[in-house]
């Protein structure tokens, strides 16, 4: 499998008013052409930040980077701004959690879709408008000629997210990063948006990196999943594998907390505690304070990521060595 996107030991420090946050502490991630992997984990665990680092959306004067992000062989971390601007929107696109605020309120839908096409293809306004209409049809918001003239506030959240997708896909990107694309939407709309993403992936032959905190969504759409905790990837596996044989206790906890429609009880197991706020580099397993299996080994050094099976890696020595018996 030749990777289209390869992230190696990515570290990001953010300078905030309350001090330096060691937000990403060595992320490893690879993504091949046409894949649809998930990047799962609770909020503040670094998935969104990883995405922003790929898109180079982090403020350069308030963050520090090390490691490597390669896209089709080119290093992005120190690439020229001009190169990045050509890449963004054209070859790598991104959609965001809250479409309501992610669209420019003063610009028509048609203009917002047309803009991206014009920037990257240097075409006339009329041609851009034609492309915008095509995209509106493609993401399922007819009638295009009426929609083009509408403003974001005239559309529902679901339609707004479709517009976001139309924008992101207007230039047929190779990679689409979807940052919690359905979190702000109703459940029924969620499914429609996920279906749309699945269809577009096939039609446009693109890879999608789907960021979510919801393992139910992973089960529904992703081929593979990487689970993040406290700025690291702690487990990566095929979707089927992780549901059957998750190693890391955090992955297990996330799987256990999938909301089930029509479940017997309203009770949802939640994980006690919260992810650490990363004001220092944690020496040892970051999950230890919340982990039922934590022992001295866990606190002495950062757990290494090791292979469980062919496409399955995890960073928890305790569970992998079966030291905890058959839990």
């Amino acid at each position: 499998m030749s990777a289209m996107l390869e992230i190696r030991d990515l570290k990001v420090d953010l300078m905030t008013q309350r001090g330096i946050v060691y937000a990403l502490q060595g992320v490893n991630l690879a993504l091949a052409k046409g894949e649809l992997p998930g990047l799962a984990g609770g909020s503040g665990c670094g998935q969104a930040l990883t995405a922003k680092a790929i898109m180079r959306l982090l403020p350069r004067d308030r963050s520090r980077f090390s490691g490597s992000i390669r896209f089709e062989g080119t290093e992005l971390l120190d690439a020229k701004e001009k190169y990045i601007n050509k890449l963004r929107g054209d070859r790598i696109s991104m959609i965001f959690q809250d479409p309501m605020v992610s669209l420019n309120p003063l610009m028509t839908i048609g203009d917002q879709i047309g803009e991206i096409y014009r920037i990257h293809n240097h075409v006339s306004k009329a041609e851009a408008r034609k492309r915008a209409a095509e995209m509106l049809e493609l993401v399922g918001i007819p009638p295009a000629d009426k929609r083009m003239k509408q403003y974001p506030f005239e559309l529902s959240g679901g339609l707004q997210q479709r517009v976001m997708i139309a924008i992101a896909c207007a230039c047929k990107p190779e990679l689409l990063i979807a940052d919690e694309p359905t979190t702000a939407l109703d459940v029924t709309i969620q499914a429609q948006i996920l279906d749309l993403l699945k269809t577009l992936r096939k039609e446009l032959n693109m890879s999608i990196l789907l960021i979510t905190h919801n393992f139910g969504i992973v089960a529904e759409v992703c081929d593979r999943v990487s689970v993040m905790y406290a700025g690291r990837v702690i487990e990566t596996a095929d979707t089927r594998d992780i549901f059957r044989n998750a190693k890391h206790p955090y992955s297990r906890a996330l799987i256990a907390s999938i909301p089930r429609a029509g479940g017997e009880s309203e009770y949802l197991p939640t994980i006690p505690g919260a992810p650490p706020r990363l004001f220092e580099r944690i020496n040892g397993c970051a999950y230890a304070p919340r982990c039922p299996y934590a022992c001295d080994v866990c606190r002495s050094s950062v757990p290494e990521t090791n292979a469980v099976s062919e496409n399955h890696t995890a960073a928890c020595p305790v569970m992998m060595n079966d030291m905890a018996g058959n839990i």
Partner: protein
Amino acid sequence: MSKYIFKRILSLIPIVIIVSVLIFAMVRITPSDPVAVMMKGKKITPETRASIEAQFDLDKSYPEQYICWIRNIFKGDFGTSFHYKQPVLSLVSSRLPNTLQLVMMASLLALLIALPLGIVCAVNMNRMADRVLSLLTLIFVSAPTFLVGILLMLGFAVKLGWFPVYGAGHNFVENLHALFLPAVALALNMVALIARITRSNMIEQLNAPYAQTAIAKGVPLRKVVMGHCFKNALIPVITVTSIQFGGMIVGAVLVENVFALGGVGALLIDAIKQADYPVTQSITLMMVVVFLTINLIVDVLYAAIDPRIRLDA
């Protein structure tokens, strides 16, 4: 859009009526005696007083006086000044256009300076350029306008002779030249506030999620700033500018005095001191109409900028 404007104009009519009553009442409530002022404090017989009061309609009841005032306005007569013994309209018409042009030029200049300043500061937030420019604008705002006026006059009019030292021109075009220095003096004062509002709103807009979307689309920063964020930051800027514009019509007095322009503000202040009822009430009413017109223009601008306002109306 035209329906929206029409509706707004209709809604102004009751406001003007109510305000005219208030103005009329306030002018009468002030504890001053116009007859005494006219006679410069000389002792007069009750007969003389009565004849003067009759001459200026002061013997009539308040409601009668009010109706008389309003009725005459519709005939194009704003009354006759107690003090100058001239029609108010001719007093005002030689001054109001100058004042309005001065204030307009000052506002335009202020915007031309303040908008780029605010944008540059926002884009370079907390960097050197931002700090220096913010400090400069602070100095501008703390410098008294009349002092700036005098300095400008000394430098550019007396020394260099580029502009007339005092007095206004006779028409709009002449005034562009004659009113330039006073306009600059007034503008410098506005610049600080407008620039600061522009800066803070631009910072907010640059950090808004839609700006991030634009960047993620590959839009170059310059176009994100000017093409996306600027329009979104504009509404508060317009609000502040319009408020300052209104305040300056009377507030320009100091500068107008320095440059001997004889504006409408000075006329109003003198009229109040002299209990010159017709001048006071008519100028105040005209001011109100000017304010309401500015407000209307501002509302129309809002609607032109923001579809949420335009399509809601």
